[in-house]
């Protein structure tokens, strides 16, 4: 088994889609809670993770330039992350395909955590 980070990516548009009305907000919340529960029960969810603020700061280069970003209008901003356990990348992708963010037009970036093997 290997571990994978899932990065939940979405845009403002996607957020509006999932929160356009109280009904949609309720539906979105229910779907996410059910999905996390399912992964937990199957033993797939290693670290629940956390939501991230939409904007922060970039510190760039040798000059250590500090700039704002990413801009909230940016197409896809990482809105949160979780860590799962799966047999391989294909399996991890299958797990990620259950993520409710996809229904709203967002995406999940799945990245294997590099192993430190001797």
């Amino acid at each position, binding site marked *: 088994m290997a571990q994978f980070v899932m990065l939940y990516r979405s845009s403002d548009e996607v957020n509006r889609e999932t*929160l356009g*009305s109280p009904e949609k907000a309720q539906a979105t*919340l*229910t779907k996410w*809670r059910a999905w*996390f529960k399912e992964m937990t029960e199957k033993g797939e969810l290693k670290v*629940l993770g956390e939501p991230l603020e939409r904007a922060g700061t970039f510190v760039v280069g040798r000059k250590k330039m500090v700039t704002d970003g990413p801009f909230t209008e940016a197409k896809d901003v990482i809105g949160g992350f979780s860590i799962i356990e799966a047999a391989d990348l294909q399996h991890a992708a299958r797990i990620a395909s259950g993520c409710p963010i996809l229904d709203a037009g967002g995406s999940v970036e799945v990245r294997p955590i590099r192993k430190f093997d001797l």
Partner: protein
Amino acid sequence: MQDAERLFRREAGRLVAILTRLFGIHNLALAEDVVQDAFERALETWKFHGVPDNPSAWLMVTAKRRALDVLRRDGTARRFAPELERELDSEWTRAPAVEEAFESGLNDSQLRLMFSCIHPRLPEEAQVALVLNLLCGFGIDEVAAAFLKSRAAMEKRIVRAKKTLAGSKRLFDFTATDVAARLPAVQRALYLLFNEGYHGASAETPVRAELCDEALRLVHLLVEQRLTAVPATHALAALMNLLAARLPGRVDAEGNLILLVDQDRSRWDHARIAEGVRQLDLSAAGDELTVYHLEAAIAAFHAKATSAAETDWGGIVAVYDTLMKVQPSPVVALNRAVAIAQRDGPARGLEEISRIEERARLARYPFFHIAVGELSSRLGREDEAQHAFDKALGLARNPAERRFICSRTATVPARPRL
């Protein structure tokens, strides 16, 4: 899990009211943005960690922080609520002013926004749409559904209405003279809102209890405010409580409509009846007699009766007689005729129906034909009954009405001829 849908709906109205109070009505869009932002934050966090024990407080605190950020950040570029200008400008008084708006100003903010929405330059439907959207937290889709309008048409209407609202100099000022002048329109808007839920011509369900609940919540705000708690407001509150009390008996488990005379009265909400009666007593102060008084009086006759047979139909007919003098309409005349039929028999009822002036205006109202069908059927005139029910069926506005009429037609031929 807590019902986030209801929570968001309820809190949206409260937060927009408070924030508009702080930011000023001209910054309505900004207030809505801040609320939206607070909801997005809540949703993002709750997705991972579940809904907290006290979600309302969570949203309040989030919105409060965001409001302070905005006031601090935009303080020089924007003008906020003119009446709070001095408090909000100073670093020392800003936080306490915001705190106070969130802690103690809730009802006051909602009332002021409600009165602002009933803008004299807006048509009635736009006023009610604004109340639903801003104070009740209904999305555009839901407001459109409430009025059987397309989403695009309703969005246009609401956007335009909000522009009018944001063009006001300030939120409605709660001074005695202004309140008295606008209160009747506010009462009327809430009455329409309630009726939309109670008799609404929705395609899906015959009753949308949620619209009734919102109208009740808002009318209780009026009842609790000294300046708005006049007899007519109490009468309106009485009417809403007495009618809403019957909602649990109005449809059966399959969603079928049940006529008042056939309803299981043990299912009525007796707490609401008690509140309705209490409000009706309060409405009797003074010598003002409004349509709300009369309609509430009729509803009270029904609420007090243990069955259709035990009902004081004579008393009800008398109130309808007065109602016909105060605000005559074909629908009131029809209801009066039905009450007369209960008191004096179906033949008298049909006679009264045939005497209704402007009867043509009822031609497209399914319950007119249902009444004619019922009374004809009770007299054993099956052909006439069948004809009337067929007409009603063609006019039915939702599946529940259709099923209801079918259940009636089925009983026609089964009745023995006398």
